[in-house]
């Protein structure tokens, strides 16, 4: 059962206080988008063994959505950060690179 620190209220919350929200940094495609774009937005999800970015809501706490970077294989958490961003912040990327030198980077 995971332990993640909510970047908004600072509580180190256990998984039962959180609600999962799937992959982070999806780009929404609405009317006017191609079938391929829309399919990718709705259905195509990464399932890496290793570094992954996820959405979590501090549902039983401050109610805010936040994002987490963690390793799906070892469950190491590289960091959590606010959801108001379209990509992982630099400090998170730096921390991942320090821990996983062969990581290909956020794409």
């Amino acid at each position: 059962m995971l332990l993640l620190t909510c970047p908004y209220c600072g509580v180190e919350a256990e998984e039962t206080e959180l609600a999962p929200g799937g992959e982070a940094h999806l780009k929404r495609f609405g009317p006017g988008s191609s079938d391929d774009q829309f399919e990718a937005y709705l259905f195509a999800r990464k399932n890496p063994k290793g570094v992954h970015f996820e959405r979590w809501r501090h549902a039983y706490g401050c109610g805010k959505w936040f994002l987490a970077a963690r390793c799906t294989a070892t469950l190491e958490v590289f960091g959590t950060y606010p959801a108001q961003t379209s990509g992982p912040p630099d400090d998170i990327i730096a921390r991942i690179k320090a821990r996983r030198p062969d990581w290909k980077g956020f794409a």
Partner: protein
Amino acid sequence: MSTRLTTGGRLIDRAAPIDFSFNGKRLSGFAGDTLASALLANDQMLVGRSFKYHRPRGIVASGAEEPNALVNLGHGARAEPNQRATTTELFDRLQARSQNHWPSLEFDVGVLNKHAARLLPGGFYYKTFIHPRAAWKHLFEPIIRQTAGLGAAPKDGDADRYEQVYAFCDLLVVGGGVAGLHAALVAARAGARVWLVEQSAQWGGRAPVDGDLIDGVPAADWVDAAVAELAGMAHVTLRARTMAAGVYDHGYVLLDERLADHTPGDGRPRHRLWRMRAGKIIAATGAIERPLSFACNDVPGVMLASALRDYLVNWAVVPGQRTVVVTNNDDAYRTAIALHQAGQTIAAVIDARDQAEGALPAQARACGIRVETGKSIARVKGGKRVTGVEVCRQTGDGTISNFLACDAVAMSGGWSPVVHLYSHCGGKLIWDDAGAMFRPDAAHPPITHDGRAMVIAAGAANGALRTAVADADAQVRIALKELGVKARKAKAPRQDLPDEAALQPVWIMPQAATLGLRAKAWLDFQNDVKVSDVQLAAREGYQSVEHTKRYTTLGMATDQGKLSNINGLAVLSEALNEPVPQVGTTTFRPPYAPVPLGALAGEARGAVFQPLRKTPMDDWHAAQGATFEPVGLWRRPYCYSHPNETPQQAVAREVKNTRQALGLLDASTLGKIIVKGPDAGRFLDMLYTNVMSSLPVGRCRYGLMCNEQGFLSDDGVVARIDADTWLCHTTSGGADRIHGWMEDWLQCEWWDWQVFTANVTEQYAQVAVVGPNARKVLEKLGGMDVSQDALPFMAWTDGSLAGFGCRVYRISFSGELSYEIAVPADQGAAFWQACHDAGAALGAMPYGTEALHIMRAEKGFIMIGDETDGTVTPQDLGLDWAVSKKKADFLGKRGQERRFLASPERWKLVGFETLDGSVIPDGAYVAAAGTNANGQRHVQGRVTSTYHSPTLGRGIAMGLLLDGPDRMGEVVSFAKVDGSTVQARVVSPVFYDKHGEKQNV
């Protein structure tokens, strides 16, 4: 015979005798006994039967690794099967019964199975019972059910209570032996918040039993001092009788504390499950001795050498008068020496090694004990009890060299570190050739959230069998350093142990044993898996240890292979001609030992099994004897039956009364979310399929919400409160989900939009006042103008009724003249009563959810969850009018443009009227011509709601049908479960008041 010595026993209090019973026989023991030690003290060697062959089984071990001595404990509401006698503390009037025998322990019909052993080889589940087919149902299964299986499931509800507690610490030390105690001391002295747990009732582990010296003092004294020091520190928590059941992600550990197992009914919870979060875990869980695999090693009286020593030293119990010790290592000599010093006879020490020249063998010889090297046991003689052993050369095939009469055999095949906690979360093991054991690989520990080791093994659990304290000192310092805690510099206590010579791995005894011997050499005592079974599996192509485990059932018994695991896979590796580490181990999974279901359920039983959400009027409903139904976690009245009225009759009455006079509905569960801000209109236009920004203040509009796929997700009436405030009603039970949905889009996608939301569902009680007399009752309550002119259909206004400040919505979900009135929740019960009082003369009656559903179905109004199931669009339901064509974007718009969703072949909403007036069964499909590839009838539609309409006096239904709206008047046929069909005419889904005149008066 097995008996209690007149002196000794460090754990028993001879001044405190205890009566107990086994299979109805009255026996007695002492305070401090386990059930196992007390049984042995009473010469009760036979404690059960094996699973497959029903062979007699005796006590083998002295702890959690015991495979045989499982009993039914207690009776009635305090009955628990499969309790380990070795870990069950004796208490007054304890009642135990043996299990897995039929009809009795002494005479067991299942023992016939042993004559059928030829039919029950490894993999017998997959081989023997296949043919003939009918024989399984009528012959094999009934017999197996009768004779196999473990204890009986209790029939009564559990009288005990259980609880769970959340706990946190820097360092959790598991295991209260000398390694664990020392690790805890170092950490505690450094100021860390420490927990130390020990599964048994005693601290100290094996060291006091073996009489070790620590820093020159007897281990028992050192242990007492360590426990006293730890107990005196506020930041240290000591818990005995507490088993670490499992290690999970990020330092989460379940600890099962046995509070009242030994004091049943004393008012305390029986077990307490600690839900621990530890910064770091030290697994000082010790090691478990391995049996040796020689023929008939399962005869009662054959025990682990260390267990024999435990029974002697801890409880002054000797299982036999004349003992043979069989070993491949020096440690087992301690048992021979201890027994000798207690005045017992040792027939011989049979040592598989060619030489035994260490300090302990020397001491044994000096005691006059006969030591035979290079020897092994060919076969144990005896049935329900050991009578002797046939001795042979270890390197031979079992040719007997001599016979030794004895009534107990102490065996030792070396020690295996208890690596379970290290392995639960993926810690890797390495094979240690010198110790012939798997031990934790510190280079590949289980990882916690900071990327560092979550579990660090220490002492014997780390393979440091003889340097446990020194190893614990080193390991705890690593742990503290990673935790950022500075440990004091200090020398580790000195453990003075005699030197030991190397052990010699012995997996089969003797080395070239004949098939006859191997077929009697047990690996897994409980599941009856023998050396020959594993070898057969290897011959049949099972190369993976995981496959072999399932095929043979090795290690799948309730002891989870604590004794059998290493021996089994060593036999497999020899059969496959591969080294042990190549073959690998099976996966260790929690729990380490069984945890009662009650402890896992914790407080969640009875009244607090799950939250029950109640409206402010709930007491009133209950007092009226309402029949309740769950809606989400809410409980809502389904109907209010009068005396001598069935629920069905009550529902019909409620519908008719509402349509003819006046119905009152507790609608408080309806979700209510306030959306406010400069961008609120724009936001709601994205959320709903229709336009909400254009809604005038004071008016209401019905709206639909879809997910991004374009499927309907929720519906409800939206009211415009002021220039930048809207109130969105959601379905009952949908409020939290929709509020979360709104917040998700506001926080994660449109975070620059200025919108705030608040879920105010529970702030208001809401009453639906419905029916031709609705206006009259409000006028009678008085206080505001509720006329058609002042408050037309789909308008709302604030005001007061009978002095209750309220907001009145002129909306209808029944097709009748209807007002929904919201008052502050604390006023809800009083307002509800006021409505009934004022309405009494106008025919007011409460109605429940079933009448609500029927009335909306009569009107053709859809219900989320009935007409929708996550695959239905608004267009499918003929709700195109509520989907904006003008808006450039809304959630679901792009999804609905997909070819499949835009297809004209999608099933569409229609009504169905049965020709015979009957009610179409729930979920029935409309049959079409032909069958599919599986021989199933093609279908062209299905029912989504179906009721008996009291208003129309016939069955009505709504459903989805291919080309539905174009097929009005056509008769279709619904398939029923019994194979028959029911004919129904396709009609408009609006069955009642087709032009909506009644609600708009």
